[in-house]
C-alpha cells in the first residue's frame, strides 16, 4: 500500500511540476520544512515507544489478556491499548495469535479500539500541532469512545 502512495505522490509531483514549476518547488519546500520541524519530536516519541514496547511482549499480553484474567483482562486491554502504538501490520497478526491462544473477541475489541483511537505516547507530537490542552482532551474523549466501542462489541460477542 505504501508503495502505491509513494508512486502516486511521485506522479502527482511530476504533473504539478509540468503545470507550474515554481509552485511545485514552493509546495515541496513547505512540506519538507514541516517534516524537518517535527522530526526531533517524532524521533524521541519513536524511541519512547520502542522502549515501552520492549516491556509489552507477546507473553505479557497473553498473560494479562488471556482467558484466566477475568474482568481485569478488559482493564489491562484498555490500558495497554492506550499506551502502546503498534503499527497495524504488527498489531493484527499479534491479535490473530492472541485469539488462538484463547484471548476472547470481547477483550480483543477493547484492545484494538483503544490501540487505534488513543495514543498517550504520541501526545507530544499532537501537542505541537494542537496545543497540549486540546491533545489531552481529545485523547480523553477518544478513550471514552474506545471504551464505548469496545464495550458494545464485547457485549455483542458475549451474547451472540
Amino acid at each position, binding site marked *: 500500500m*505504501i508503495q502505491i*502512495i509513494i508512486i502516486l*505522490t511521485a506522479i502527482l*509531483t511530476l504533473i504539478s511540476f509540468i503545470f507550474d514549476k515554481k509552485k*511545485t518547488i514552493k509546495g515541496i519546500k513547505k*512540506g*519538507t520544512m514541516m517534516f524537518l520541524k517535527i522530526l526531533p519530536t517524532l524521533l*524521541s516519541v519513536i524511541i519512547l515507544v520502542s522502549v515501552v514496547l520492549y516491556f509489552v511482549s507477546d507473553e505479557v499480553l497473553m498473560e494479562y489478556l488471556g482467558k484466566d484474567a477475568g474482568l481485569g483482562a478488559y482493564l489491562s486491554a484498555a490500558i495497554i491499548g492506550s499506551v502502546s502504538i503498534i503499527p497495524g501490520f504488527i498489531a493484527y497478526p499479534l491479535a490473530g495469535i492472541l485469539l488462538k491462544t484463547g484471548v476472547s473477541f470481547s477483550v480483543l475489541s477493547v484492545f484494538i479500539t483503544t490501540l487505534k483511537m488513543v495514543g498517550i505516547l504520541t501526545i507530544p507530537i499532537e501537542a505541537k500541532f494542537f496545543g497540549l490542552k486540546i491533545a489531552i482532551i481529545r485523547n480523553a474523549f477518544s478513550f471514552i469512545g474506545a471504551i464505548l466501542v469496545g464495550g458494545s462489541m464485547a457485549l455483542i460477542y458475549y451474547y451472540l
Partner: protein
Amino acid sequence: MKKKLKKYKFDFPVIIAFALFIAGSYLFKYNPGISIFQDNFWTFLKEMILALPVMFILVGLFDVWVSKERVQKHIGNASGIKGIILIILLAFLQAGPLYAAFPVAYILWKKGTSARNIFIYLSAVSIAKIPMLTFEIGFLGIKFSLLRIFISIPIFIIIGTIMGKYFTKNKCEINNG
C-alpha cells in the same frame, strides 16, 4: 538558535541518551538494548521514513494548488452532512500512522475546514484506514471489522462535534508543527 533548541528541550536529551544507550548495548552485547533497537526502533523508523515525507510533500502540494474557497465550500463550517461524509472518506483512504494525520489536519484547517470536521477526520483516520482494514479482516474476520466500524462512526461524530464546539469557543488554533 537558542529559541529553536528550547523548542526541543525534551527531544534532544531523549535522542542523545538513546543513542548512547544503543551504542553501549552493542559494545557490551547487552541484549535488551539490541532488541529494542533492532526489533522495535528500526521497524518504526522504516515505517516513518517511508510514510511521512510522502505525506508532507502531499500536504505541501495541496497547500499551493487547492484554494481556500474550494475547501471551505465542501468541508467548511456550512458543509453539513455532506462535509462529514467527505471528510470520513478522505480519512479512510489515508495510510500511515495517526501522527502522519496531524500535518494533514493542519493544512485542512488552514484552508478553512470546520473544527468539527477536523476532529472527525482525526478519529476516522485512527479507526479505519482502508489499507489496514484488509489486514484486520484477514486476521480477525469481517464480522469484527464491520461491527467495530459501524459502532465507531456515530461515536466519533459525537466526539468530533463536542471537540469542534470546544475548539471554536476557546478560539484554538492548529500550528504547523
